[in-house]
């Protein structure tokens, strides 16, 4: 009886170790496949040029239009989300500190918002766009993506703020500062590493999301200059180029995928490094 138990344990520990290690392998495999496939077609032109005539038949050019469009949309949306999210997260953790129930209800609804798929945000943004009589444009894309990433920003920042000890809050109030001063000068500074993580996470989500900008941002071969011009985005560029029957264009889709993966990896490492760097000066 005892032996059977031990054998059972050995089998299951082996199985679960196998699953865990294979997850690391899967990640390396995905990134490896993308990089190996994409490096053939990756050249400076891809990053530095917009599509020229005949680009979609294998002619020369690059995806600068999509890189610029993606960055514009992600930066714009992140700015709007900071504008909404920063005060919201501080409000939840400073003004509402004595109302546990309200805090939890707000968190609950934000989590539900986080769970809504981006295609629904896209459809919503599209309806909003039609309602205001706008065309597919940079502005519409920015607004839709901002709606998508605001809950992410608030919840990620809030998660860090909620771990700040209450004593710090009380100490600040005891020194005679108002709640707003406490929020911006004490709590925000203490939660700054979390703020950076939240910003970079939302930025990454915004730059990588395809379904929400599919209806709203449109697609163009030029780098957008005004807010009312359509804008191309990197995920859509990958998607459209992959749908082409011409091998060279498909190769370029893989190269664009390398660019996008590289941006995401960079953001992820930057978030880790910066959060560590700024939390060194924190009070503990």
């Amino acid at each position: 009886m005892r032996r059977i138990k031990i054998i059972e344990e050995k089998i299951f520990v082996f199985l679960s170790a196998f699953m865990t290690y294979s997850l690391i392998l899967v990640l390396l495999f995905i990134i490896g496949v993308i990089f190996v496939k994409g490096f053939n077609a990756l050249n400076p032109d891809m990053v530095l040029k917009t599509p020229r005539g005949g680009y979609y038949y294998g002619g020369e050019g690059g995806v600068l239009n999509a890189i610029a469009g993606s960055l514009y949309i992600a930066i714009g949306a992140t700015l709007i989300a900071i504008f909404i999210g920063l005060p919201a997260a501080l409000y939840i953790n400073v003004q509402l500190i004595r109302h546990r129930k309200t805090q939890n209800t707000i968190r609950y609804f934000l989590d539900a918002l986080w769970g809504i798929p981006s295609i629904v945000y896209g459809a919503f943004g599209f309806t909003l766009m039609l309602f205001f009589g706008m065309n597919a444009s940079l502005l519409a894309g920015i607004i839709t993506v901002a709606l998508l990433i605001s809950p992410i920003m608030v919840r990620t920042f809030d998660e860090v703020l909620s771990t700040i000890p209450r004593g710090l809050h009380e100490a600040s109030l005891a020194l005679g500062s108002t709640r707003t001063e406490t929020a911006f000068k004490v709590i925000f500074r203490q939660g700054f590493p979390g703020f950076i993580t939240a910003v970079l996470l939302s930025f990454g989500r915004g730059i990588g999301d395809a379904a929400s900008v599919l209806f709203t941002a449109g697609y163009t071969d030029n780098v957008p200059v005004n807010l009312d011009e359509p804008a191309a985005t990197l995920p859509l560029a990958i998607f459209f180029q992959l749908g082409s029957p011409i091998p060279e264009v498909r190769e370029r889709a893989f190269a664009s995928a390398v660019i996008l993966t590289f941006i995401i990896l960079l953001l992820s490492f930057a978030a880790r490094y910066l959060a560590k760097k700024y939390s060194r000066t924190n009070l503990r």
Partner: protein
Amino acid sequence: MQQSFFSLVFSADWAPSEGRFGFRPYITGSLYVTLLSFLFTLPVCLLSAIYLTRFSPQWLIRIMHPVIDVLAGLPSVIYGVWGILIVVPVVAGTIAPALGTSSSGYSILSGGIVLAIMCIPYILNMLIEVFRTVPAGLIEASLSLGATRWESVKHVVIRGNYPGIISAYGLGIAKAFGETIAVMMVVGNVVKVSGNPFDAAYPLPALIANNYGEMLSIPMYDSALMFAAFLLLIIILIFNMIFRYLIHKTKKQ
């Protein structure tokens, strides 16, 4: 022309230009892909979460954190590209012939595999959080009664956390159900109701994403697509509301 709610949801008659909208192929397509991905994630996430919280060396946990973060942060279009490069040829060239059928590779099975890989980091993260809430005393009590470590896991960690585990998977399912681009790239997008995982399907999000261009040119088509978005929203919102509530409750204990 108007259709009743039931004929919209249960009819398989899809002819937008004649004003007939039956969503059954899309709904079954979505459900089938999601179900398959759930079957794939079920053992992987549960076992790795147990390993990471109970058995693993400390250095592995330190490595797994960035791995989970990066996997969760990769855009869905990247998973789609990977699916087209690897999963589709493998399904078409290896799995389908091994089971004695043929497939183009753009199939429900490929969609399920890609979705599963996408959902694993998300579910795993929540499961690890849930398992961390188990008090060490409970495990120690079980060990001191002579149970092996695996038995303690089975009877204390898993048995005591049913709500948390179910919620983690419920939220994962909700995420899989609304996933658009990655699935759309590998699932084939053919309108039909089929039980064969090697056939192509057409999930709801793909329907919305593929047809936005022509939706204003056919009468009622835009309403139909918005109805699809509405169905997605309601189903996912209900899932989220129920399981978030359960998870909030587990965390409070």
